[in-house]
């Protein structure tokens, strides 16, 4: 490592600044442009309370995307997260059974279910060598069926206020912004933990190595199988957290998490992650999720009918990835 760092020190400040600017993911520019566009439509959205509201609404997707990134950089997909979210909401409403004192042990159980799903996903991919697309697709079908079977097809019960507080509650009084959503606190804590794990511990480097070249990683002494399992467990845990927030925000709904898996993958890719592994950054992925949510807000403000928002989302995802692919080719 020593020679490498001396080379870096020899570089002039200007060239280092240039390199730093070039290494900034374009998603941050996109995000800022989207926020400016939202501001021109309705300036109240850019006041602190407006931003907090946007963050609160985007929190489930942002957390989910950060988890999904762990799987993507290791070279896989996790399609099961949406159904884990739905199962979390369903499980919470049935297990809490309208008694607020049940909330805490129920949350523990929900995490246990999620972790079990993640371990199974990871084991299937690592030891049974099932492609992650198929393994997590099977898990998606199985968990979706299990959730509906559990409720008998129609949701029952409701979520107690202390459970819903995570998704829709506010911390008040807080100076300057008056009230601060719990969901944003959860978002900040989870993001900080995941950024730390990915960018400041060996875990992230090892996952990147696995995704870049699994065989080389193995020869370098990385426990490839275990790394993959860890990635799926992280993804599943974020799905449970996202489910708890979404349940608090939207109430009981047996398909609360449907479609989130593809949104999370899209968001991670918007944030510069490369499918099939080897490249990605947690903050950029989180920014990708926020940009996607900001885009929905903007399209809403522009008065576009809801279905057309899907179409615009599709075009933008393709455009962003095509841009990234083309610029990667040019720099080569």
């Amino acid at each position, binding site marked *: 490592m020593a020679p490498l760092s001396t080379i870096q020190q020899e570089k002039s400040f200007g060239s280092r600044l240039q390199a730093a600017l070039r290494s900034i993911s374009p998603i941050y520019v996109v995000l800022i442009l989207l926020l400016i566009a939202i501001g021109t439509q309705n300036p109240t959205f850019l006041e602190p309370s407006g931003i907090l509201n946007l963050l609160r609404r985007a929190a489930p997707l942002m957390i989910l995307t950060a988890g999904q990134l762990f799987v993507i950089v*290791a*070279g*896989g*997909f996790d*399609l099961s997260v949406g159904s884990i979210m739905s199962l979390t909401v369903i499980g919470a409403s049935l297990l809490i059974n309208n008694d607020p004192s049940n909330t805490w042990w129920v949350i523990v159980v929900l995490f246990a279910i999620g972790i079990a799903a993640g371990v199974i996903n990871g084991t*299937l*991919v690592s*030891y*049974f*060598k*099932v*492609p*992650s*697309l*198929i*393994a997590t*697709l*099977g*898990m*998606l*079908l*199985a*968990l*979706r*069926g*299990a959730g*509906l*079977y559990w409720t008998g*097809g129609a949701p029952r019960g409701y979520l107690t206020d202390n459970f819903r507080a995570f998704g829709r509650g506010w911390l008040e009084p807080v100076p300057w912004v008056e009230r601060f959503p719990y969901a944003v606190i959860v978002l900040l804590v989870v993001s900080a933990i995941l950024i730390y794990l990915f960018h400041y511990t060996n875990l992230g480097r090892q996952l990147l190595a696995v*995704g870049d070249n*699994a*065989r080389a990683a193995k020869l370098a002494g990385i426990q*490839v199988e275990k790394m*993959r399992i860890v990635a799926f467990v992280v993804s599943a845990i974020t799905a449970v957290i996202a489910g708890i927030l979404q349940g608090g925000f939207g109430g009981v709904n047996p398909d609360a998490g449907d479609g989130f898996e*593809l949104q999370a*993958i*899209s968001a991670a*890719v918007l944030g510069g992650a490369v*499918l*099939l*592994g080897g490249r990605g950054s947690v903050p950029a992925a989180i920014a990708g999720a926020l940009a996607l949510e900001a885009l929905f807000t903007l399209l809403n403000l522009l008065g576009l*009918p*809801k*279905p*057309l*928002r*899907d*179409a*615009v*989302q*599709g*075009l933008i*995802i*393709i455009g962003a*990835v*095509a841009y990234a*692919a*083309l610029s990667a*080719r040019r720099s080569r």
Partner: protein
Amino acid sequence: MTAKSLTSMRSLMRDSKIPPVYAILVVVFVAAIVLDAIFGRGQITSSTILTNMVVRSVALGIVAMGQTFVMLAASIDLSVAYLISVTAVMASYIMQGDPNRVPMAVAAVLGIGAFVGLINGLIVSKLKVNPFIATLGVGLVLKGILNASFENFVGAVPRSFQTLGYGQIGPIPISILVLLSVTIVGALVLSRTKFGAHLYAVGGNVETSRLSGLRTDRVIILAHVICSLTAVLTGLFVVSRLRSGAPWVGTDGLYDLESIAAVVVGGTALSGGKGGVVGTLAGVLIFGILDTMFNQLGVDTFLKQVLRGAIIILAVASYTIRSREKAA
């Protein structure tokens, strides 16, 4: 069965080029017969139920053949479910129950399908967008346009067009013949044409193929066009069964993910270059047998989904577990 006869059977299967998935198909079928005899009414081998079983597999089967083509090229198509919806809605909207408008409607949806496939192929090959994202994006665009234009069942197909879904030639339903012809044509294209050989080459290693002088982009684009056309065919079959098209018929059928699962269960590698439509047919039939068996046994609809998910994983695991390659 002794170990020796098992080995000789294995070599027999290898020599006859029957994909190994047919062994799973037989096991699943025998298991279904046994389970049905013990817990059900023991009617699963009756010709009515067997015929129904195959008819149920037709919709998924046709599009899975196209999905096999793109997956052989190491691509994937997540837009098929939306294209099936578009086809069903547009066909029934244009036909409006008038037999004279059938040719126009069929031509229109085939045109739409070819165009969507072309777009998918161009984005994947020329813009170098990961196929997962490219076709997901195209699917979202189709979904958005469709849902913005139609909200419910629209139009109707004339009685004559329903022959596709319900008609019979002698004792054999036309739909089964359609599925078989698509499979046979697909198998012939893959094994006997230059395009088929190029497809395996591109799926095996796109860079090597390009350096050997193949126009790899064209191969990928053509594979996507073929896939979209099979999705259109499935859409036409679905609308002829339903008699009218609604914007949710494709997505509710989960044709995107299920067709991919059927192809992989059928032995085609997700990484491309290996497999074929004959294996896919077995994969689709396995799903059909499971559905029929669950119905015969009266398994809860939701529990059915759980078992289905588990069986997809098990079937794929049964041959990936032996491979040395690392799949992610």
